[in-house]
């Protein structure tokens, strides 16, 4: 009996190796042509994203410089001081200044464990979609959030939350999971809204989600909006 055990073992190991090699080969066969076709586009995207980051950094430096200059009142001129305060308030409203305060931080992630446990299932059921994030934001607004950001992207009036394929874009910036949603406001009200909506649904379907409340001694920081506001078609209605 022992004589045929060894050969069978060897055959099984070899066939196992062959099978796995086959899988690898097929995976690269199916991915390569599309990958090559899209390589140029991905290159373009990466280049644009790098340049955008550079521009945003340069703009931020200038905005801060401008802010400093505008706030360095020359000789206590009353009207300049008033104007400076107005501009500062307007910038705050427009999301152009970083803010901090008490609030809540929510983290939602793809359900990788669930997908690994059911690898034949539709992977789309295990990833966070832009709709999930949009719903959480809507609910945080309902909880009177005063400022919201996702992975460092400030939510302002014209902020769009969308996807291209499986990639989530906010303010045309590519975001990857886990998604960290920060909201400044009354933590108890924000928590109540969170626990009666999308967050609860995600939790119920096995997504790894969590949240932390922050008080004003240990405030949440939310960055300024780094994008631009475009008005090419809008005119003031005199």
């Amino acid at each position, binding site marked *: 009996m022992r004589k045929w055990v060894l050969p069978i*073992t060897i055959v099984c190991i070899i066939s196992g190796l062959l099978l796995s090699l086959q899988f690898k080969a097929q995976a690269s066969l199916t991915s390569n042509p599309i990958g090559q076709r899209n390589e140029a586009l991905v290159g373009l995207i990466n280049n644009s994203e790098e340049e*955008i980051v550079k521009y945003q950094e340069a703009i931020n430096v200038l905005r801060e410089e401008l802010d400093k200059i505008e706030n360095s009142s020359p000789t206590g001129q009353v009207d300049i001081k008033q104007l400076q305060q107005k501009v500062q308030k307007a910038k705050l409203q427009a999301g152009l200044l970083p*803010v901090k*305060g008490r609030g809540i931080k929510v983290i939602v992630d793809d359900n990788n464990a669930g997908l690994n446990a059911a690898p034949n299932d539709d992977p789309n059921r295990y990833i966070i979609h832009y709709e999930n994030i*949009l719903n959480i934001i809507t609910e945080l607004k309902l909880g009177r959030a005063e400022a919201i950001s996702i992975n460092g992207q400030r*939510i302002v009036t014209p902020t769009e939350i969308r996807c291209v394929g499986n990639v989530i874009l906010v303010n045309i910036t590519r975001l990857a999971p886990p998604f960290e949603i920060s909201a400044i406001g009354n933590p108890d009200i924000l928590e109540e809204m969170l626990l009666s909506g999308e967050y609860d649904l995600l939790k119920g379907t096995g997504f790894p989600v969590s949240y932390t409340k922050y008080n004003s001694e240990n405030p949440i920081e939310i960055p300024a909006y780094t994008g631009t506001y475009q*008005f090419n078609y*809008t005119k003031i209605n005199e």
Partner: protein
Amino acid sequence: MNKKNWQVPITIVLVFLGVLLSAQFQTQTRVLSDLSMQKTEDLITMVRNLSDKRMQLERELEENERKVLTIKNSSSDELNIINSLNAELNKLNLINGIEEIKGPGLQVIIDQDSPILYVDIVSIINELWAAGAEAISVNNIRIDTNSIFFYTETENAMYITLNHKPLTFPILINAIGNPNTLEKGLTLPGGIIDNLALFRAYPYLEQTEEIIIPAIENPPVFIDAIINKKTP
């Protein structure tokens, strides 16, 4: 005893095979979210959006450089600072919706019979922003960051609410921007209009030469959020 002798190696081989297979699956799911595996047309859209954004940032950069230069060249001149501040305030007022505005754009009209929920309104507005809308109103109420959409129920009806006030039908969403781009943003295949059609909701779209959008009703109030001054 004999049986057990061949069970052990086979078990080992099968476990080994299982590990290999699961590793394979993991690489494949990782590949799914890789950028180069997305649809070419999606990538083209992304490239186009990014280059638009880059151009906008470039313009903004130049504008800011000019502002800083102007002020620096005449730092003693208070009038210049006042002028610069006023110009900035004017743009900020446009951003913050302090003024009534007008421009070409798109109207989305939703009838009484449409089985529409508040999340659908949020989605339509989200798609309009994505398509480059510059300002949006719903039933003549200007939308800003703090606009709150929800619903309220009475004994025999459910209403969508905007800032806790019921929206009456027909719901009229106005967006200022390039009318064509705005319409395409909603009607692209698999987009929001296709999605709503699955639920037998058929919003009516109309490109318009002039839309008037009122100023915001209440400016946002900041109680908990304070300016986060960076220490240099």
